[in-house]
């Protein structure tokens, strides 16, 4: 009995020889293991280098607690706002024809193409003490740069495209006939949006929210420029990790980092779960 008949004949005429197939699979898996999984596991190992007690202590320090709180606050403000902006932008692009449409699409992509550091600097130039609006803000006792509002603004800027980018193709594919049908049935604009538009884009929207949230939690560059690194006040988790690491407290840095990694893994898990549910839904549709 030869090898082929043992494994059963190939199902497709175009299939590669088995050797190449397994080489490719091994290469892909090996790469993922060495460059993605190993470093990730190492984060947890390093976090516990001085024992689990040290790790939990590092996380419960007031400065760390405040960093965690700030990160959640920033994500909590950024994500809802970007959902609203994203929906509005996607709606405008998918449902209306207007002259500046392609310009708007390009603008939505701007945060993707710009370095986050530059994004942070733009805010400093605008709102900083030496900036355009600086004197006016100073006179009215408003602090944006080196304060929480600056961090929120920077995060909004960086995460803006996620929701809109996910929604535009879905909305364009759906078209507007279902909405027109709802109108002819007597639904108000709001009812139409709530019962017809939103359900038809819910997967795209959730996916956008997940990506937006992941980036909002993990953003470093733009936030670093505008934060001012005031421990216990304007340090987010990412900034806290860097600071601890620079202070040669690697285990503590990795402890906070492992929390970020956990958040990321959780996000991925939710994403996989959603994709699975969506695939199941589509299968039922067939």
């Amino acid at each position: 009995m030869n090898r082929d008949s043992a494994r059963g004949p190939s199902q497709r005429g175009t299939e590669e020889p088995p050797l190449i197939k397994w080489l490719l699979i091994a290469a892909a898996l090996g790469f993922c293991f060495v460059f993605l999984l190993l470093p990730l596991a190492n984060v947890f190992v390093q976090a516990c280098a001085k024992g689990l007690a040290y790790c939990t202590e590092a996380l419960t320090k007031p400065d760390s607690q405040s960093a965690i709180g700030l990160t959640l606050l920033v994500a909590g403000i950024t994500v809802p706002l970007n959902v609203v902006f994203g929906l509005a932008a996607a709606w405008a692009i998918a449902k209306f024809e207007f002259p500046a449409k392609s310009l708007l699409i390009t603008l939505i992509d701007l945060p993707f193409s710009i370095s986050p550091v530059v994004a942070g600097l733009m805010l400093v130039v605008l709102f900083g003490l030496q900036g355009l609006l600086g004197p006016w803000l100073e006179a009215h006792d408003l602090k944006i740069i080196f304060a929480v509002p600056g961090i929120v603004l920077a995060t909004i800027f960086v995460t803006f495209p996620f929701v809109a980018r996910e929604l535009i193709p879905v909305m364009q594919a759906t078209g507007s006939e279902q909405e027109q049908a709802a109108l002819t049935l007597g639904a108000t604009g709001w009812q139409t949006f709530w019962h017809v538009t939103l359900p038809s884009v819910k997967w795209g929207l959730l996916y956008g929210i997940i990506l937006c949230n992941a980036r909002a939690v993990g953003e470093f560059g733009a936030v670093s420029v505008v934060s001012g690194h005031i421990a216990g006040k304007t340090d987010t988790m990412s900034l806290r990790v860097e600071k601890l690491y620079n202070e040669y407290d690697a285990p503590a840095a990795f402890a906070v980092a492992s929390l970020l990694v956990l958040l990321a893994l959780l996000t991925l898990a939710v994403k996989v779960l959603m994709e699975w549910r969506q695939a199941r839904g589509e299968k039922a549709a067939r």
Partner: protein
Amino acid sequence: MSIELRNVTKRFGEVAAVNGVSISVREGELMALLGPSGGGKTTVLRMIAGLEMPTSGDIFIRGNRVNDVSVQRRNIGFVFQSYALFKNMNVANNIAFGLKVKKWNRADIRERVAELLGLLGLEGLERRYPHQLSGGQRQRVAIARALASKPSVLLLDEPFGAVDAKIREELREWLVRLHHDLNVTTLFVTHDQEEALEVSNRIVIFSRGILEQVGTPREVYEQPANEFVARFIGAMNVLELEVSDGAARAGELEFPSYGLAQGQKLRIGFRPYAVQISSDLTQYRYHALLRHTFFLGVLLRVELELPSGLTIRARMTKEEYAHQGLADGKEVSFQIRQYRVLAKESAPLPPERELPYQPPAAIGENI
């Protein structure tokens, strides 16, 4: 009057999609808006629904001017060509949607939905989602949804366009029966003249945004108002004639000159059924060669080629064909029983309007 349009015009930029159209639809009527694609029929329907605003002119529904009434408050039922069912809702919720947003109470909604499911033969499908339905079922759900809150008029955009030919036939009969049962004023758009002739009480014929004729199927077929209608409804042989020696001629065919001077032109048309054929060469004045026979079911279409090269289409029953002992390649005599003058040369002859390609129907095409 159930629906009335007075001198309605709709422009998209420079283009007038609908140009000065006036139509009256009577209460309880089943009316077809017929015309070639791009003729402005759907725009008319959407203006009545309130999905488009007329550039000028007035629209009345049951005597009330509705130009400034929003879509939601016009109380119309609209069935989209693609049906536009709500994908995330099951059949029952699709039908109930309009009632829910109109704040009917639960018991009434349940009762009405059950009634419609029964009326449209959708029992047992209430928990299904649109993607689990056949094309015909989807259409019935769309109609049930449009009828749910008892609209004063039902508007259907190409209702049979999205289903295949076999189901289309059933759906037509079904629509006629439904209309008979409900007696709700119904206006539907179609580009298929056969469909319009078969289903409707009256037909409005459009082309290029202009109303060409309004009438019963019989009227538009037997007394077409103009050349366009004559050629659009039913099949027609069209000949261009030139007057010479006191008669209008094309090849060996001779018609009266209608007082036109030598050399002037004239266009006439005649239906294929108006051509009488005999295998007895002495019976009729003209002779021709029977070129091809096309089998259409009960009827046959034959193509005659005259010695001058002119080709004429004729139609006859199978029995007559057999009785005459006809066959391809046989020489026959024929006459034209009825014809119609389509255009006379006053100045130059108006150009023939182009007609969209009409795929031949399976049975009894344009009888």
